[in-house]
């Protein structure tokens, strides 16, 4: 009993540390990647005793700056809600990482430990629910600020997130029809199989259209630039107009956490999670007849590495998207959500059903 509690605690801490560290360094990746894309160098001056390391200390410098800023709340704001809003939006996104499997279960001191904080049997729904609850952070922030622009931003954000929630859910319906379970561990396990004898049975091969809809809707859920209705830096500054210092930092951090959660979900649902193509528990079994045995620990390391690489790739892709496309107008966002993504999701569900009926 005590051992179970201890294991869960360690896993919670590890998952949280992994997520927060990745989010911290995503701020660095974002700066550097945008710089390299635009033929610049990017932040490289932060140093510890003259050691610069490509500006890798920049996130810590930013964090220290945020920490030592004045914790300011305008007198006209509603204090309790003003404090609650960043916490809410941070919490609901961070808690979504609970359901993500980082690797295949490992044997430790005679017990099987899944590399996942909790194996929820409705994990897909849980993550979707947590992402929807993230709206409350924005709404409460806009309301508590008692500022018109903040309220406009938060209402636009709520409208956007609610509409894209529909497309996001619809894009996963086809996936749920294909996969035998709603638990993320089960889904990843299922994706270890082979399609036509050689293709890994990943969600992207089973549901290509579903992935496109999922990824675009997910991008909108992260509310970063092409879909940055709640912020609108060029017009209304957005729902965190009245926030500064660490509270503002939490909102920014939440954005990066959402990027990570979306990457982790895309990886888990559509790109096989921790699965490496053709890697079984005993080593590689290639479809053309080859075979390469591997030690169990090597397999585990390879799988965790594979999960991390996939997540990093999607983070990279999202930052590329953020620095490539100009932002949508409000009506364009609504058009894309309701007139393109929702019908596409419905078509995907229909096509999946037809294929099932035909088989």
């Amino acid at each position, binding site marked *: 009993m005590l051992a179970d509690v201890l294991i869960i605690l360690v896993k919670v801490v590890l998952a949280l540390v992994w997520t927060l560290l990745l989010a911290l360094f995503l701020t660095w990746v974002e700066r550097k990647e945008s710089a390299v*894309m*635009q*033929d*610049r160098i990017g932040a490289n001056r932060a140093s510890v005793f003259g050691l610069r390391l490509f500006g890798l200390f920049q996130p810590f410098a930013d964090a220290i700056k945020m920490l030592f800023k004045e914790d300011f709340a305008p007198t006209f704001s509603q204090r309790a809600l003003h404090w609650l809003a960043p916490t809410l939006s941070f919490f609901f996104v961070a808690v979504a990482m609970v359901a993500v499997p980082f690797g295949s279960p490992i044997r430790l001191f005679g017990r099987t430990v899944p590399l996942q904080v909790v194996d929820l049997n409705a994990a897909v729904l849980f993550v979707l629910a947590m992402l929807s609850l993230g709206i409350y952070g924005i709404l409460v922030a806009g309301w508590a600020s008692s500022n018109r622009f903040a309220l406009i931003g938060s209402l636009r954000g709520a409208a956007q997130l609610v509409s894209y929630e529909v497309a996001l859910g619809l894009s996963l319906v086809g996936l749920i029809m294909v996969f035998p379970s709603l638990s993320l561990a089960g889904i990843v396990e299922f994706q270890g199989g082979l399609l036509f004898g050689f293709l890994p049975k990943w969600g992207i091969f089973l549901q290509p259209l579903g992935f496109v809809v999922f990824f675009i809707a997910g991008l909108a859920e992260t509310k970063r630039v092409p879909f940055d209705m709640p912020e609108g830096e060029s017009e209304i500054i957005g729902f965190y107009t009245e926030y500064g210092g660490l509270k503002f930092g939490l909102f920014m951090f939440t954005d990066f956490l959402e990027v990570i959660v979306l990457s982790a979900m895309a990886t888990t649902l559509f790109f096989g999670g921790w699965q490496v193509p053709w890697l079984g528990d005993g080593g590689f079994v290639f479809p053309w007849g080859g075979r390469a045995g591997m030690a169990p620990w090597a397999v585990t390391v390879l799988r965790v590495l594979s999960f991390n690489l996939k997540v990093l790739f999607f983070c990279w892709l999202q930052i590329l998207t953020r620095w*490539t496309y100009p932002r949508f107008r409000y009506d364009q966002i609504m058009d894309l959500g309701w007139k*393109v993504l929702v019908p596409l999701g419905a078509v995907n569900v229909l096509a999946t059903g037809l294929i099932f009926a035909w088989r």
Partner: protein
Amino acid sequence: MLKAWKVAKEIGRGSWITARHFFVNMTFHTLRLFGIKTKRRGAVTIQYPEVRKVLSPRHRSLHRIRPREDGKPSCVACMLCVTVCPSECLYVEAAEDPDPEVQKLPSKFVVDLNRCCFCGFCVEACPVDAIRMDTGEIRLAARSRSGLEVPLDKP
């Protein structure tokens, strides 16, 4: 349908361009990190305080008074620069020169960089080519206004 295809094509082209920039620049950055000389650099950035861009010879920077062979300023305090200056930033006080060949010399020659607009009219107006703007000094900052009132007669 055709429009959707065109939009999708443009979206793809956009990320193709940025991704190409990313990977090409990353390649050059990585090669240079490992000490391999490449013709191109990964970035166009000039890292300013350490690396300086070469200024154009026509660039107008901080003023200076060209000295004579004996080290004294070659200015004859004719006040032409003061007259022509559109921002009224020059302040010249004339004094008698001990040398009988030269009538006057400036006992005080101050340029107020708070006001100077670096038009270079003073350089054009000078009949003896005494004032020039070719020091190449572009870091003109001071903690107070008086710090920007630069005396030019003292070397």
